[in-house]
């Protein structure tokens, strides 16, 4: 059965041939984020009343820092993929859509890089 309209057929619009990687990466990061976010939320909750020294030591311990860096990478990649889908669904103007996707990717990358550097600095006790 063919679900494509005659106009769609004629214009040759259809698969961009790169959707699977996007879909798969969204799921892989989602699975990684399940334990990471639950762990991080409870860790921060437990630390919420602690003083600077305790929090810095706890967040900056090697395993903790490694898990937070993993969390940041997975979360920002997941966010970029998700925002792209939202833009693609609601922004019909191609130029605006491309600018929105690229702009979001750049901002999320910068934020992720800042987060990773902050965690490294906490870990090495700078």
């Amino acid at each position, binding site marked *: 059965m063919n679900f494509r309209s005659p106009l769609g057929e004629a214009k040759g619009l259809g698969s961009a041939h790169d959707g699977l990687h996007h879909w798969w990466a969204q799921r892989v990061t989602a699975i990684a984020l399940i334990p990471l976010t*639950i762990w991080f939320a409870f860790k921060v909750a437990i630390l919420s009343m602690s003083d600077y020294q305790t929090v810095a030591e706890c967040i900056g311990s090697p395993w903790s820092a490694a898990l937070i860096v993993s969390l940041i990478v997975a979360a920002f990649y997941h*966010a970029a993929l998700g925002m792209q889908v939202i833009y693609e669904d609601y922004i019909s103007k191609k130029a605006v859509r491309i600018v929105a996707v690229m702009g979001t990717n750049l901002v999320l990358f910068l934020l992720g890089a800042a987060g990773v550097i902050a965690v490294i600095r906490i870990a090495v006790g700078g």
Partner: protein
Amino acid sequence: MSTNNRPLSPHLDVYRLPLTAFVSVIHRGTGAALSVGTVALVWWLIALAGGEESFNTAQQLLGSIIGQLVLLGWTFSLFIHLANGIRHLIWDSGYGFEKDQVTKSTFIVIGVAFVLTASVWACAYAFGTGV
């Protein structure tokens, strides 16, 4: 080209969204909100990396009533997105599409989100008094 006999989707203005549809919309909403919310996470980590003074300022802000309300919305958004995300993964593997299953899993998603949010906040308030 005959396209006028295609089925129409329910008109959103006159159609009361079922809870299942509402949660579906919420998944996108919380996803976008959490993307913006990453700024708060990075800001907190930078404050901690900046030393005792900047950390204390951040903690004070987060400990204020507005800060706590934002964090409450943040955590609930996170857990509803997480719970519904797990449901999406189950759907991806081909299970749970029957109407009664979807209705049931909608309530499970909301329940799990409430329980996780309440647990995190219980943890936060059990480990000390005042920021």
